[in-house]
């Protein structure tokens, strides 16, 4: 049995707007793209780091009310913006070693589902931000 676990309850901002109460899933991933450095004389594969490619994906309830999901995102399509996310709401305001704040700056939003509706279900959308510079704050 795991000795330490974390019940998902992060807080996040998109373009400085706190959308935690509209968000049901969030994933921020740091990737250092692997470059194959294997050469003659070796039968094993070796890799070195290439460019970084950070991504942020989240699922949000859609709302067209003022200061809600659509208003936050409508003008961001095709632009770069800043994402912040922390495992806890407190960590978003005051990051610590056990509640770090991850900031992804200059990340690009390629598309925004304008309407994603299914009869009898709450409308939600999935966003995917690509690229940018990832920093981690612990204090």
């Amino acid at each position, binding site marked *: 049995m795991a000795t330490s676990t974390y019940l998902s309850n992060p807080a996040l901002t998109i373009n400085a707007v706190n959308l935690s109460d509209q968000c049901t899933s969030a994933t921020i991933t740091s990737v250092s793209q692997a470059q194959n450095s294997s050469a003659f004389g070796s039968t094993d594969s070796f890799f070195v780091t290439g460019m970084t490619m950070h991504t942020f994906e989240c699922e949000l309830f859609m709302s067209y009310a*003022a*200061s809600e999901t659509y*208003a*936050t995102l409508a*003008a961001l399509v095709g632009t*770069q*913006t800043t994402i912040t996310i922390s495992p806890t709401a407190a960590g978003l305001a005051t990051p610590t070693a056990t509640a770090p704040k991850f900031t992804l*700056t200059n990340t690009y939003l390629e598309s925004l589902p304008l309407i994603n509706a299914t009869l009898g279900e709450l409308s939600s959308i999935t966003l995917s931000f690509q690229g940018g510079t990832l920093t981690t704050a612990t204090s």
Partner: protein
Amino acid sequence: MIKIISPRVGVPGEEFTPPEYTNLQALLDYGFVEDTGTKKSAKTTSDEPKD
């Protein structure tokens, strides 16, 4: 000065300091914040000579 309107951005009425690389125009366009420095006075003056 940029003032906060929506509590999603911060405390309404307080000054908003946009984090680095924030799309400020998007926040202004959709009413999350307002630029109080660009408001024009209702009173206008004219340089044209009076009759």
